[in-house]
C-alpha cells in the first residue's frame, strides 16, 4: 500500500470515526444500550517498551522496545465503559456489582471492577450486541493511547554490582511524577481527547488489558527472548502509568504497587473485532 494513501486514509478515518461507530451498532438491529461510540484506528505501527520483567543472565534489564505493526484497523470504544453501561450487565445478571460506594455520575466510567468483571462484561456485551467485544491487548492500548501512553518505570538497566541503584531510580522516577491523587471518577470526556479521538485516556481511571504479566529471559546475544513464563493471574493495567494487577483486584490502591504510585481507579474499555473491516472502511470512504 503506498504510503501517501495511508496518510490520507488515516486523516479521513479519524474524522469519520464517530459516524462509523454509530452506524455499525445500529446495524446489529437489537440494540439494548445507548449507542456505543467507537474510534477506528487505521493500520499503523508503534514502538514501545514491552510490559513485564526482563532478565539477561541473572540481572534485570531495561524492557525491550519493539516495533509492533497493526495490519488491520482496530475499532475501540471512544470512552471507557460507563457506570450506566455496566449497570445493564448487572441487571441482566451477567456481571457482579462494582466494588464502588462513592457517588459517581452515571455517565462516568465504571470503577471498582476487576479483570474478571471486565471480562464478564465483554462476554455479556458480545452476546447482547451480536458482535465480538474484548479487552484490548497492551500493545493495542498503547497504540490507541498514542501520545498519552507513558508505559512503566521498569525500563532501567540494572547495575550488576548494585541492584539497589535500579530500585532507587525507579522509586525516584515515580516520586518525580508528583501526581496528586485525584480519585473521584468524572463524567465521560472530562479528561479530553487524544490525537486519535479516544477520550479520557490516562486520566484517573486505569484500564484493564488482556495481556498477561510475563517474565522473560533475553537471549545472551540480545536477539530475542530465550524463554519466558506468563502469569495470567496478573494482567497489565494501563493508564497514567503502566502497572500490573491480580485478576480479582478491583481497587487499584490496595491491589499492587507496594512502593510508588498506585492507580486511582480501575476501569476498562473494549475493542470490537469484526471480519472484513478493511473492506468496510474502504467502502465507506468510497475507495
Amino acid at each position, binding site marked *: 500500500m503506498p504510503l501517501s494513501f495511508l496518510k490520507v486514509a488515516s486523516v479521513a478515518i479519524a474524522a469519520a470515526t464517530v459516524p462509523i461507530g454509530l452506524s455499525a451498532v445500529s446495524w446489529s438491529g437489537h440494540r439494548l444500550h445507548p449507542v456505543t461510540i467507537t474510534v477506528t484506528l487505521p493500520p499503523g505501527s508503534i514502538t514501545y517498551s514491552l510490559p513485564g520483567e526482563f*532478565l539477561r*543472565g*541473572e*540481572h*534485570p534489564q531495561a524492557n525491550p522496545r519493539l516495533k509492533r505493526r497493526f495490519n488491520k484497523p482496530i475499532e475501540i470504544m471512544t470512552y471507557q465503559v460507563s457506570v450506566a453501561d455496566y449497570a445493564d450487565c448487572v441487571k441482566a445478571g451477567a456481571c457482579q456489582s462494582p466494588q464502588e*460506594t*462513592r*457517588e459517581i455520575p452515571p455517565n462516568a466510567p465504571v470503577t471498582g471492577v476487576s479483570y474478571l468483571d471486565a471480562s464478564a462484561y465483554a462476554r455479556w456485551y458480545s452476546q447482547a450486541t451480536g458482535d465480538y467485544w474484548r479487552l484490548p491487548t497492551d500493545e493495542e492500548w498503547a497504540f490507541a493511547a498514542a501520545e498519552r501512553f507513558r508505559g512503566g518505570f521498569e525500563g532501567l538497566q540494572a547495575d550488576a*554490582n*548494585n*541492584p*539497589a*541503584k535500579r*530500585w*532507587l531510580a525507579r*522509586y*525516584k522516577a*515515580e*516520586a*518525580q511524577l*508528583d501526581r496528586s*491523587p485525584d*480519585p*473521584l471518577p468524572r463524567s465521560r470526556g472530562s479528561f479530553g481527547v487524544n490525537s486519535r479521538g479516544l477520550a479520557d485516556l490516562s486520566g484517573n481511571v486505569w484500564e484493564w488489558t488482556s495481556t498477561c504479566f510475563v*517474565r522473560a*529471559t533475553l537471549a545472551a546475544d540480545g536477539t530475542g527472548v530465550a*524463554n519466558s*513464563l506468563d502469569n495470567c493471574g496478573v494482567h497489565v493495567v494501563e493508564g497514567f502509568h503502566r502497572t500490573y494487577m491480580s485478576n480479582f483486584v478491583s481497587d487499584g*490502591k*490496595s491491589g499492587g504497587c*507496594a*512502593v*510508588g*504510585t498506585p492507580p*486511582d481507579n480501575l476501569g476498562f474499555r473494549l475493542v470490537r473485532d469484526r471480519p472484513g473491516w478493511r473492506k468496510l472502511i474502504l467502502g465507506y470512504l468510497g475507495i
Partner: protein
Amino acid sequence: MFTRREALFGAAIGAAAVAAMPAFSATFAPADIGALAREKVKLVAPPFVHPHDQVAKGGPKIVEFTMTIEEKPVVIDADGTTLNAMTYNGSVPGPLMVVHQDDYVELTLINPDTNTLAHNIDFHAATGALGGGELTLVNPGEQVTLRFKATRSGTFVYHCAPGGSMIPWHVVSGMSGAIMVLPRDGLKDDKGKPVKYDRIFYIGENDFYIPRDENGNFKSYETAGDGYDDMMKVMRGLIPTHVVFNGKVGSLTGDNAMKANVGETVLIVHSQANRDTRPHLIGGHGDYVWEEGKFANTPAKDLETWFIRGGSAGAALYTFLQPGVYAYVNHNLIEAVELGATAHFMVEGEWNDDLMTQVEAPKAIATN
C-alpha cells in the same frame, strides 16, 4: 495555695491557677533560676528535628519553645478524606523538642482567636499538675507559659488533655507530639559506650476515626465540633479508620521519603499517644532500641520489631548497611498497608554482596 482538689477542676480554676504560678514557682524553684543561661529554639515540623547537641555543652539551662495551636482541616489520605485536625504548631504530630536532662523546658503555648476550642498540654516528661495540663489550659485568644524541669532522660509523649471526652478527641484529632530528653553525656550502648547518630527522624503515629455515611464513604464536617458526636461513636468502637505516620497516608513516602546513606547511623523516635504499635524496618534492624524510650535503661540489641506502648515514645538506633528503598512500617501489616502506617527510607551507597546476593534469578522450575 494550689491544691489537688483545685487541680482537678476545669477551665475557670485553671485561669486562677495560672495567676498563682509566680508565687508557686518562687517558693520551690532553685534560687539561681534567674542565673541560668537561656536558649531559644525554633521548632521544625516532623519528621525533621531542630538542631541540637547530642552531648550537652555546659550546665543546665532554660530552653525556650513556642508553639501555636492551629485548628484546620487536613487531608489524611489519597481519597481526599478530611480530618478537622487540631495541631501543635500546624503539624500532626507536633514537633519534637530536644533538651538535656536537668534542663528546664519553658514552653509558651498560644491559642489564637481564630481557633474555636480550649487546649492545653500534658508533658509525660514533666512532674505534677497533670503533666502541666492543669496549668496550660488556654481559650482561643489566650497564651500561657509553663516551665518544667526535665528530670528524667528519654523520649516522652506530650498531648492535649482538656478534660473528659475532650482528651481522647483532641488526641485522635492530631494533638500529640514528643520531647526527647537526652542524657547530658549523650546516648550509650548496652556496655555504656557512647553512641551517636548522624541523622534523626521523628515519626508520630496517629490513629484516626473518621465517620462514614450510609454508603460507607467518609464524611466531612465544616468544623471539628460538627463532627464530634459522629466521631465519638467511631472512637468508642476502638477500630481506627486510618493508622498513619505524620498525619496522613503517604506523608513519608515518595518525595517525602526519609533519606540516608550506607554507613550512616539514624535515630528514629517513634511516638503513639493513644494506641499500641510495633515499628519494623523492612530489610533492616534496630541495632540499639530503647523500646520504652527511657535512656537510663540499657538498650535492647538487634531487634526485628519493637513495641511502642500507647501513650509513649521509643527510640531506635540503626546503622544502614545496604542501599535501597526500605519500608518502615507498623508491623500490623493491615494497619501498614490498608490503613496507612508506612514510611520509606531511600538509602544510597554501595551494595554489599556478602550480606545478600541473588544467586539465581527467577526462572522456570527445572524439569528433568
